[in-house]
């Protein structure tokens, strides 16, 4: 139901544009905190997808997220998987204001040519990149990344 909190045990997927992805010496992707903080149009609530909303294997769930995307995924972009409870606790424990971020369900109805996006979720209380605290929150979230997928299934 819209506005419900996504359970701490569940997982979310965040689209990370290529500009926020670098590589280490071994060619492994490095996602930096800028990919997780709010942009001005986000109103301090950047978008995610709730993976457990869907059934099936993890790969099938990720594929369902790709299928309803409302932006064109970039060639260098990634999808980062996070655990909700881990993010909430890590941010809470490591910000000066004990910042409480939450993840709420925010399903999107069909719009224009886009199908419904029933797994859409928002992370609330996330500052933007012009706020030093925002970058700190972004870096803390980046430390919680469990897994990285190609945004485009076939690269």
């Amino acid at each position: 139901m819209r506005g419900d909190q996504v359970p701490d045990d569940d997982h979310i997927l965040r689209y990370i544009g290529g500009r926020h992805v670098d590589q280490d010496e071994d060619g492994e992707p490095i996602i930096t905190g800028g990919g997780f903080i709010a942009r001005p149009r986000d109103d301090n609530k950047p978008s995610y997808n709730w993976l457990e909303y869907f059934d099936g294997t993890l790969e099938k769930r990720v594929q369902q997220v790709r299928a309803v995307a409302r932006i064109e995924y970039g060639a260098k972009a990634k999808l980062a998987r996070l655990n909700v409870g881990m993010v909430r606790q890590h941010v809470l424990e490591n910000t000066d204001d004990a910042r409480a971020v939450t993840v709420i369900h925010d399903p999107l109805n069909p719009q224009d040519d886009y199908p419904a996006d029933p797994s859409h979720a928002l992370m609330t209380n996330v500052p933007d990149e012009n706020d030093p605290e925002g970058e700190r929150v972004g870096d803390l979230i980046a430390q919680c990344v469990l897994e990285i997928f190609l945004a485009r299934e076939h690269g």
Partner: protein
Amino acid sequence: MPASVVDPLPVTAPYYQQAGINFEGDEWNLDAFIEQRRAQARKKARYDESIPKTTVESLTDLAAEPYVEPTEQHARKQDDIARKYLKAFRAAKARIMELKDDARAEGYGVSAASENDLLAFLNGRVFTRRPFITLLDNGNLRALWKNAEGEQIGLQFRGGKQVQYVLFARRKDEGFMARASGRDSLAGIERQIEAHNLGRLMTA
């Protein structure tokens, strides 16, 4: 009996400026750069009393400014640092160019003021690991050095010689992670990094 130099000379920034090398171009003469560093090391060893000498034995010798050669071990270490620094600097510049190309292709821009400040910071600092560099949605560049222990130096170059920083530093004695964020000047951020003992992330 010749003494050997055990400790390296302090690493002072920036090598390239001391050596008169221009990083704005794509070419530089590495051999000349190395030779400059060797000459500097010789000169420093001559006057720095903390560095053991091979020949100085008396005031007479000192007055005559005898030729003093740092040990081969020391010279090799300096050469190695210089090569790694040049390699890391070149890689950082290539990464910035890549981001600019991608931004151009996708129709957005990179702040020239941010790029200038990032290059100024990299020019004034010895680093042998290139930072991860990303482009923020506001057009500013951000550099990040981090390690597996969760420590990091995160610097957003905002232009106008202003830096927004996020520093995570593990306090080994107390066993917790100190975290600091805020804004400072280009010069001030150097002090912040040293105060948190994080310069090692740039050279580890």
